[in-house]
């Protein structure tokens, strides 16, 4: 039996004091905590917690990388953001993007999951699952590159295919009314498979007896879906909605790929918050200003997450 480490001596941190009052066999644990958990906590402090507070701090200053003096200006950055047309555009675009992408992706993923939940002849449902998951595998940049090519106004295959339906050639990434939808479509395409897999997991958890009982009671397929499946999938739905929202608000890579370079499409129709932050912070070096944007992004995501928890909380 390991001896009680002389925990009583020394600066009494809450942890130690508490354990000191516990039974002896818990004592060696604080050594583990210090040695194994300690560095992890340190890492969190250094690369997560402190930076978050630093961002808040910087947002209250006129913080420019190229100027030595960084005066405190209170909420001035936020005031400027409120009247900044570029930031307002970014806010609107990002919100539109999130509001469309999240429901569309999840509804589609759910529908596909429901269709694939029951086995098919020849176990074909597994083939479908793999095919649907395929777009999830490559990373966002190659996907953006290939969709940029598909959307090409002169040589792209989408315009060609739509030509058969009598639709004239469009500038999918150029027309300010179409550009954001083009990116939404591409993002939905890429993410559907991921949420499908998660929904399938949730569906499997629902006991078959519920459905059988409902069938005996004369419920139709649709009723079974809405009365049993949807309510019982709430935990998975909440999880999916939260992570989908976070991803949606942080959209950046695909927008960057589409708009970078002399042949990039116009940035404004697809200006999103992170793009604006990147430009302000790393192009004009107004890091205080960009930090204020970051704080707003953070607060929006935070608020939405709490709302989603409220709304989708599984009613037990």
């Amino acid at each position, binding site marked *: 039996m390991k001896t009680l480490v002389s925990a009583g001596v020394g600066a009494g941190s809450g942890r130690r004091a508490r354990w000191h009052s516990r039974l002896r066999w818990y004592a060696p644990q604080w050594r583990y905590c210090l040695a194994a958990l300690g560095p992890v906590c340190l890492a969190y402090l250094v690369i997560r917690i402190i930076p978050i507070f630093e961002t808040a701090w910087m947002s209250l200053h006129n913080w420019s*990388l*190229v*100027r030595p003096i960084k005066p405190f200006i209170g909420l001035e950055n936020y005031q400027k953001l409120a009247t900044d047309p*570029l930031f307002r555009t970014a806010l609107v675009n990002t919100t539109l993007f999130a509001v469309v992408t999240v429901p569309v992706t999840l509804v589609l993923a759910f529908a596909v999951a429901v269709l694939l939940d029951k086995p098919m002849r020849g176990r074909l449902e597994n083939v479908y699952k793999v095919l649907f998951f395929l777009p999830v595998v490559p990373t966002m940049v190659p996907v953006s590159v290939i969709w940029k090519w598909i959307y090409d*106004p*002169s040589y792209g295959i989408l315009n060609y295919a739509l030509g058969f339906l009598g639709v*004239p*050639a*469009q*500038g999918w990434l*150029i*027309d*300010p009314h179409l550009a954001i939808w083009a990116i939404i479509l591409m993002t939905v395409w890429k993410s559907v498979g991921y949420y499908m897999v998660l929904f399938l997991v949730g569906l499997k958890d629902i006991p078959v007896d519920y459905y059988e009982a409902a069938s005996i009671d004369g419920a139709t397929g649709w009723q079974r879906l809405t009365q049993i499946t949807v309510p019982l999938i709430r935990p998975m739905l909440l999880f999916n909605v939260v992570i989908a929202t976070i991803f949606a608000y942080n959209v950046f890579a695909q927008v960057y790929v589409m*708009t*970078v*370079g*002399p*042949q*990039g*499409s*116009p*940035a*404004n129709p697809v200006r999103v918050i992170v793009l604006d932050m990147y*430009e302000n912070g*790393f*192009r*004009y*070096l107004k890091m205080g200003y960009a930090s204020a944007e970051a704080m707003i992004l953070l607060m929006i995501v935070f608020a939405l997450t709490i709302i989603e928890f409220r709304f989708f909380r599984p009613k037990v």
Partner: protein
Amino acid sequence: MKKPRWFGTILGIALLTALLAIPATCLAGQPIKLTLWSGYPEMKPYFEAAAKYYNELHPNISIEVSTFPLRDVEQKYAVSLPTKSGPDIGEMQSYIAQIHIENGGLLPDPPEVNTFLKSGVFHPLFLSDSTWQGKIYGVPVLYSLDSLLYNTQMFKEAGLSAPPKNWDEMLSMAKKLTKYDAQGNVTRSGLGLRLFGAGSGVSAKWWYFLKSAGGELYEECAPGAKKYRAGYDNEAGRETLKMYIDALYKLKVHDPKLKQDAEGFANQQAAMFVRESWLVGYMKKNAPNVEYNVAPLPAFKKTNTLLFWTNVYVTSSSKYPKEAWDFIMFMANGPKLKELEQIQYDTVGWMPPRNDVQKRHPGIYTQVPQYKYFAEVPSNYTLYPYPRLYVTDEALTKLAERLVTAYQDKSLLDNPTGIAKVIHDAAEESNQILKENKLYCGK
């Protein structure tokens, strides 16, 4: 599941090695490695050849050349030069360099370089625009005028014998050169205009036309006052925007769905457009069968064009400034000058900046006639540089965003009030940028 454990050890060792490698290279000692950054990827063959030749003369000095897209290198300079973590040598335009000059990120030229610069081998504008508070910064490494490229084949077909000399001719010829499909959509643009893409490029291209119309981005309020205001909230600004709107919606000589800029010209989707001499290298590589020639920028109220060039600078991040300057002088005035200039003419497209090139390359303008009007213009033309304020980049980028939106606004056609408002709002923003940086004069 043993996999995580030894797998982890091996990668842990890899991490350790990587961490150790950093100080190890610092202790390397004798061999000197200089880093050079450029925002002009087409210049890579030039810099790499120069590095190779230099290394033959100085085996212990190697130069690592990195090229980036222009927007990205400007951003990298912005974050690295103030913190002394930048390259030894950086190539950039004067207005990008300005903020780094003012913040001490770039070093002024040593005396022997100054002597060389003042020896008369460069156009006086290169020198005057590289001087700040009495000191000269950087050495020119490439240049070009902005001129009109036109597809000679398309001109012949349309029965046009000579390129346009002014805006009226430019627009009427563009109309003749445009091709349409059955629905009236433009399938071949008569005048390629830069409508979007890559930040400030859009506004820079608009600005050349603005200058021809007599306007300016930022004008000094009084000579030597060092205070400025936007110089386009006037007829010049309105007429330039009107020209674009008319070209797009009245004459319909261009369409944003077509490939634009260099890509459009190379794909024969445009009959004319304005750019610099790097197109010569680009066309040679990507569209060698396209027949084209170059003419001076069409004039309007003023007859002028942009003198574009870049300098190479030694930065204050450099641990070996002496060797860096030596390398720069090697490129500008060394034993391999002729070979390096040849690379620029053959491959790069950007032209060597010295005004005595014809001594080493006689007949270059006969061999490659397209270079002629990128290199010189008729004597009645004035040459001007970019406005050398360090806020120019932010101003041009923000103006670009407004222009891109304006170009897509059909309601601006025959709408002088609308155009005036767009111009006025944009100028307000440009002035606001000046105010934030304490460069605005008066109210």
